[in-house]
């Protein structure tokens, strides 16, 4: 259950090469717009307004649109329309490949259907992992890391559960596995399909720390997260500044 993204799936199946994938991903990134860019393109917000929203977003965990609503910079209908137009205009990797003539629409459709099955299996396994032992720490941690990547790095992070027979996990356990899980019988890792994507720790630290605390309270974790936080943060320092960096990059690939 190691396929996480459609691009990787295509590489694994030998449909495209690893280097080609990187080229298409770069192309996709160039032509697609983030929501802020999209607002500028359609003339619904001024550059200084987008800047203001992004600045506010650094301090709180909320999507761009919600902050724009809160600041009265957008109306609800405008936000809904923007999200729709963004969905229409931005291209998924499959669409890029069809438009570039690498794959036919029918081939892409069949591959996407196959990939969708793999994804369902991943989610099923993950659900089992998370449900086992009612491990709230794990749920929160996954959520935090996913959110962090989405909000700050504009990348998607997907937790992948592999071989869950010898569960239970704890959040700390998970952190260890994030780093050193390869030599264990089972592990849970996170990945994006963009190479070289790393989180600058000073940026990640506040976000993850605050978010862990906030969500920890919300979901009513039985034990305080202090220990988990400390462990996570110290590990991340190690991740980013020790020789483990490569390992980390290997995980986030």
């Amino acid at each position, binding site marked *: 259950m190691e396929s996480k993204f459609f691009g990787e799936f295509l590489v694994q199946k030998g449909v495209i090469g690893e280097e080609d994938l990187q080229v298409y991903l770069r192309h996709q990134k160039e032509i697609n717009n983030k929501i802020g860019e999209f607002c500028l393109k359609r003339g619904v917000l001024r550059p200084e307004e987008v800047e203001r929203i992004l600045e506010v977003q650094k301090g709180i965990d909320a999507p761009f649109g919600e902050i724009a609503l809160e600041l009265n910079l957008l109306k609800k209908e405008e936000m*809904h329309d923007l*999200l*729709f137009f963004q*969905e*229409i*205009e931005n291209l998924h990797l*499959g669409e890029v490949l*069809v438009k570039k003539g690498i794959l036919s629409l029918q081939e*892409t459709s069949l591959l996407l259907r196959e990939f969708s099955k793999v994804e369902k299996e991943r989610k099923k396994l993950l659900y089992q992992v998370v449900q086992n032992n009612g491990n709230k720490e794990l749920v929160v941690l996954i959520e935090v890391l996913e959110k962090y990547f989405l909000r700050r790095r504009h990348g998607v992070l997907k937790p992948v559960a592999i071989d869950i027979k010898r569960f239970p996990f704890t959040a700390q356990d998970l952190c260890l596995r994030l780093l050193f899980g390869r030599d264990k019988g089972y592990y849970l890792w996170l990945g994006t399909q963009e190479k070289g994507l790393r989180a600058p720790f000073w940026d990640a630290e506040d976000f993850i720390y605050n978010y862990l605390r906030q969500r920890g309270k919300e979901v009513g974790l039985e034990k305080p997260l202090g220990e988990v936080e400390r462990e996570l943060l110290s590990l991340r320092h190690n991740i980013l500044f020790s020789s483990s960096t490569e390992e980390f990059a290997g995980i986030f690939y």
Partner: protein
Amino acid sequence: MEDRPSKGNRERLYGVFSLSKKGKVGTWQTQKTITHRLLFYAEEKDNGIITVQPINKNYVPSGPKREIPREEFLENFTPEPEIYVNQVYPAMRNLTKTIARAERHRRNKEYYSAEYEFKNALRIDEENIRATFGLGLTYLDRGDKEKARVVFNRIYNLNAAFDREHKHLFNEFGIKLRKNGLYKEALKYYFKAYRLEKWDEHLFFNIARACYELGKFKAAWRFIEKALKINPNFKEGIKLRKVLETHFSKGVERGEGYGE
């Protein structure tokens, strides 16, 4: 410009027309008057009223239509036959074909291909009702609730003048939303359909069923009664009424799910 034969002797007018509008740019000494030429697709109805719709940057009629009396139209609008023949007609044809392909893919359960084609259609005409519904339905077919919600919110904002012909789209979208467990959203759509067509037992039944799923039993009762008033032999309706009667007799606030 072009006349399309109609049932009677009268020939209906349709095609691309332009409307010139003057505006000022600059200030003081640099100010000058410029003329904008706006393009519209016009079509005459049987009653002589002309409906005009703006032509978008991709040369397809898009957005809200408005109605203008024939005399006023002829006085202000200029025919643009070349634009119609060389740009608008091919673009409209291309759009129609794209949507037809998308709908065929959807019928064949090729949902990713359907999504691709519906999006292509919407890139040509972002206001297109058929393509917007089609995309939303495709997402729901695929069980992708998040994306369906994005489309759902968009349809709700569309300024298009919905006609009775769109009723089935709202109804179908409502049914799909309900089947995906999005009951509140489903109700909104049924009520949009209700505004377009007041007398349809199936629509009343659908509203009643969504109300039931939301635990709004009194409202469910009201609508199932309406459905059965139109068609007293409506089997599904009778079944749901029985379920509701059981609930009321037991005084149950919210009952077990009313299965598919």
